[in-house]
């Protein structure tokens, strides 16, 4: 047993002075195993929808309040809520789910401005912010405020109205929440002073979705991340053992740079450990 294990971890003549686990064929096996894990997650997501996914507590009311709060911090006037703009934002989110894309322009060539036109909102100036996979409104707003272009949209004094779409669905096989902010100033300069949506109104519109949200969910990204972290720690460990034994035995061999590999895997590991959930566009 000891001999069997040593071939996998310790460089020796039997494994051509390189731990067997670091041979290209075995590294390839790690890739295959990881891809298998990804396929299983995806299959499970399709077979049992609602079990794997992101649970989100974002509501359009919270997004509206926090957007205006960011503006007020800088002494800017608040944006008025416009239900027509919210309709265009919701349509945009639904289109992203329907056509499985995550971008300002759809694969079929539809731009954000097409959604404004579709709902009959005629604007002199308009803008769009997108977010997905965030658990709460606060972290999503922080992400937008950290990005120059999104921050510019939120604080732009040319905009007078806002519409928000918060829609749940399946994107790339994963259940998630898409948030779309549509900003604009109507061409006729008549600003609507509609009441912003309340949480109750959202519940009545999305009863089914909200009941799914309240169910405990496991994020597929968290599973992928954990498997990736374990795999990288394991490979780095084997690389260090391999390097230490080679140093001890003063072996010369023709392989890739262990220092380089450890460095590359360490940086990937750090990125995996410190990336935060959520994406903006």
């Amino acid at each position: 047993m000891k001999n069997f294990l040593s071939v996998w971890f310790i460089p020796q003549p039997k494994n051509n002075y390189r731990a067997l686990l670091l041979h290209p064929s075995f590294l390839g096996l790690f890739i295959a195993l990881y891809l298998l894990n990804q396929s299983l997650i995806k299959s499970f997501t399709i077979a049992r929808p609602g079990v794997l996914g992101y649970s989100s507590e974002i509501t359009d009311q919270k997004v509206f309040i926090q957007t205006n709060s960011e503006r007020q911090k800088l002494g800017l006037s608040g944006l008025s809520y416009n239900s027509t703009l919210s309709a265009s934002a919701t349509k945009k989110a639904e289109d992203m789910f329907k056509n499985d894309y995550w971008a300002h322009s759809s694969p079929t060539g539809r731009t954000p401005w097409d959604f404004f036109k579709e709902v009959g909102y005629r604007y002199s100036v308009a803008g769009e912010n997108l977010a997905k996979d965030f658990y709460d409104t606060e972290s999503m707003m922080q992400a937008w405020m950290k990005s120059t272009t999104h921050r510019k949209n939120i604080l732009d004094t040319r905009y007078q109205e806002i519409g928000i779409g918060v829609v749940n669905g399946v994107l790339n096989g994963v259940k998630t929440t898409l948030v779309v902010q549509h900003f604009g100033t109507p061409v006729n300069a008549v600003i609507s002073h509609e009441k912003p949506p309340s949480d109750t109104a959202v519940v009545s519109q999305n009863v089914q979705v909200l009941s799914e949200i309240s169910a405990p969910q496991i994020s597929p990204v968290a599973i992928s991340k954990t498997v990736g972290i374990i795999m990288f720690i394991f490979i780095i460990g084997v690389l260090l053992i391999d390097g230490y034994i080679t140093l001890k035995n003063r072996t010369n061999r023709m392989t890739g740079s262990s220092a380089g590999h450890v460095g590359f895997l360490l940086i990937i590991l750090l990125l995996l450990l410190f990336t935060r959930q959520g994406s903006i566009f």
Partner: protein
Amino acid sequence: MTIFKEIKQKPLEYFTLLLIFIIGGILFFVFSFDSHSQRRIIYLISGAYLSWSLYHHYRRGDLDVSIIIEYLIMVLLGIIVISSTLL
């Protein structure tokens, strides 16, 4: 070659590699929440690491297909794992 021996023999090459990783890491965090840009940054780090390895082994005189494959697999592993967490 061992890890420390390697670094001692070619400090400038390893310093360049460290710089690639540090700059890549910083850029990755600068573009937090922007998965499109983060994906591009990972491709850049991986591409730079691959180029570094080619130069490093060419200089060492042991550039071989098996070594190139080893680096390709390592880079592929990194790209696949990171990309799967950047939906």
